[in-house]
Each structure stands twice: as structure tokens, then as C-alpha cells.
């Protein structure tokens, strides 16, 4: 037993627990959090496979960004659980058949004779100076350069499309215009008028000038 194997079994268990939690939790928010746990522990497993970059990217992108938005959607939803459960028994047999068929299919494809430990060669051990990040970068920007750039362009198109779909044009809002506020300057709003001090309104003459109150410097109270 090494530290790695302890970590592996710990996080493999967590991955399974999280995955089971996703489909069994009654509360949607808790289910999403279970999904987050699954992603996170999967990322740790990847890290054990020396896929540091992928692991951290999984956490950064899925846990840090996608699931947060997901969580928001779920939190704001008002789900009527009773109506969701209405057809449960009616569709149960069909569901079980589908599940069994799917499981059988998957098992047929990746059963242990095909994907078992014997069939898979142990990945090459790398030295301490091996950098997963450098390797990935080299591959992405040489062999897969075109695909990488196309993926980038597709994402850009998606962003533009999402904005153009949700942008409903100018509404006549009464909100503040921040650029206007920023350009406001002292010169255009404040006018310092120098007034000539005449005799007082009540006829009395000014006896003495008001002493300017000056703070004495230094010393305690």
C-alpha cells in the first residue's frame, strides 16, 4: 500500500458515492453538489494518472464555471416534485428494460476481456522533468492545430449567437449612463463665485474676524 493507492481508493469511492448521489438525491441542489463531488474526485484520479493539466482544467472549467451556472439554474427553479414522480410506476418496466439493454451493450463493448488489466499495457513511467503541459501544448499546436483553431472559432460563434439571441435591442431605460457620469468634471458643475463682502444686513459692523480654528500640532491630549 502506497500513499498513491490510498488516495486512489479514497477518491474512487468518493467518485462512486457522488455518482450514486446524483441520481438518488431528492433535492436537486444536493444532486448538483454530488455531481460536483464526482467531477472533483475524478479530477484527482486523473492527477494520479499524471494528467495534471487535464485534471486541473476539469476542476477549473467544469467545477469552477459550468457547474456554478448549473447550480444557479437549479437553485432558482421551483420544481414540483409530485408531478415529476407521477408516471414513475407506469414507466418503470420500460425503464428497467432500457437500463438492462444499455448495461448489456456497454458491458459487451468494454468487458474485462477487452479492457482488462491484461489487455492494457502499463503507461510508461516518466521522469520528474517530464511535463504533461508541454507535451499537450506541443500536440495541440502542431498535429491538432487546425482542429484546435476550428474549435475556438466554433466557440466564438456560439458566444456571438447566444448574445444575439438574448439581446432584445435598446429599451428606453432610465438608468444612469456611466460614461456620462465618468466624464463629469469639476469645471462644468461647480462655479466658484467671489462675493464682495458688504456691510451686514442688520446694520451692525463687523467687530472682529472669525478666528480660524487651527489644530495644535503634536502633544497628547
Amino acid at each position: 500500500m502506497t500513499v498513491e493507492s490510498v488516495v486512489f481508493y479514497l477518491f474512487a469511492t468518493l467518485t462512486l458515492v457522488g455518482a450514486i448521489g446524483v441520481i438518488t438525491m431528492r433535492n436537486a441542489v444536493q444532486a448538483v453538489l454530488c455531481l460536483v463531488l464526482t467531477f472533483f474526485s475524478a479530477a484527482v484520479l486523473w492527477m494520479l494518472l499524471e494528467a495534471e493539466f487535464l485534471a486541473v482544467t476539469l476542476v477549473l472549467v467544469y467545477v469552477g464555471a459550468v457547474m456554478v451556472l448549473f447550480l444557479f439554474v437549479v437553485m432558482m427553479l421551483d420544481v414540483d416534485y409530485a408531478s415529476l414522480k407521477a408516471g414513475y410506476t407506469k414507466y418503470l418496466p420500460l425503464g428497467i428494460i432500457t437500463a438492462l439493454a444499455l448495461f448489456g451493450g456497454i458491458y459487451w463493448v468494454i468487458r474485462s476481456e477487452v479492457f482488462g488489466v491484461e489487455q492494457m499495457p502499463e503507461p510508461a513511467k516518466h521522469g520528474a522533468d517530464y511535463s504533461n503541459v508541454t507535451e499537450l501544448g506541443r500536440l495541440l499546436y502542431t498535429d491538432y492545430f487546425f482542429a484546435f483553431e476550428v474549435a475556438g472559432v466554433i466557440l466564438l460563434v456560439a458566444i456571438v449567437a447566444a448574445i444575439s439571441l438574448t439581446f432584445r435591442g435598446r429599451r428606453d431605460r432610465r438608468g444612469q449612463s456611466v460614461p456620462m457620469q465618468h466624464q463629469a468634471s469639476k469645471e462644468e458643475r461647480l462655479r466658484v463665485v467671489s462675493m464682495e463682502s458688504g456691510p451686514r444686513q442688520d446694520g451692525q459692523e463687523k467687530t472682529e474676524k472669525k478666528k480660524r480654528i487651527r489644530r495644535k500640532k503634536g502633544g497628547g491630549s
Partner: protein
Amino acid sequence: MSKLKHFFKSFTLRDLLTGLRITGKHLWRRKVTIQFPEEQTPQSPRFRGLHALRRYPNGEERCIGCKLCEAVCPAAAITIDAGPRQSDGTRRTTRYEIDMFKCIYCGFCEESCPVDSIVETRVMDYHFEKRGDHILTKAQLLAIGDKYEEQIAEDRRQDAKYR
């Protein structure tokens, strides 16, 4: 043109740096905190703190139960029951209570009193330890008056020419 100038000027963060300079300067200024129990600010003779009921020098309580203070109190903090005293039949209060949670220390009771009975002393650091303690009874108020009579009388003397 001025807009363009303003645009580029905004990147220098000049406004923010000006603000930081001011607070930075104040870091080295003389501190004005008063270390309360050891140091105290000077009080005016008109200071309005804890209430008290006064007596005449001969020991007779001043209050005649006119209820002017009860009437004028904007917070309705004063409750008075009055009636003739058994021994000599003079009109006196049988109950005189001030709810210190209601009191806003406006000093109207003091101003309205025709015999200078209810006054506000300079005491401003006091507390209550039990529920119900915040209602000061007549006996308590008289006791406060007895305790601080010298100070109260001196303050009234100083203020006399302005009244």
C-alpha cells in the same frame, strides 16, 4: 478632444491615488480618541444625563405632583400618580417613574418643572443589570438627587442667569 484626453487620463488612476494619499496622510496624524474611563471630555453644566428628583435644603421633596413633566414628555416616559400626603395633606406624588428605555434625554421635563424638582444630572455612564431595572422609581430618583445634590445645585447656579 477633451473626451479623448479624459479617456486616457482615467487610465492613470489619478483620482484613486489622490484618495489614497489623503488616507495615507491621516495614518500619521495625531489621534483624537479619548480613552474613556481614564480620560473624559469636558461637560457643560447643561449636560442632560441620568434623571434625579431634588429636595429643598430642609429635606422636603420639591415635587408637587403638577404632572407638567408627564404632559410635556415627548416619549411618554414619565408616569405620575399624585394625591394629598397623609401626614400634612399637601399634594405629593405617590408614584413617580421614568422609563429609561423610552427617555430620549431631551430635557423638556427639566424645563417644564416649576419647582426645579426633576433635573438631569451629568451622570452618563450607567447600566441596568436586570429586566425591569430600567424603570426608575421615585425612591431611586430621590436617592440619585441626594447623591449628586451639590453638583446639581452648582450647575443650576451657573446656568441661572440664562434662565
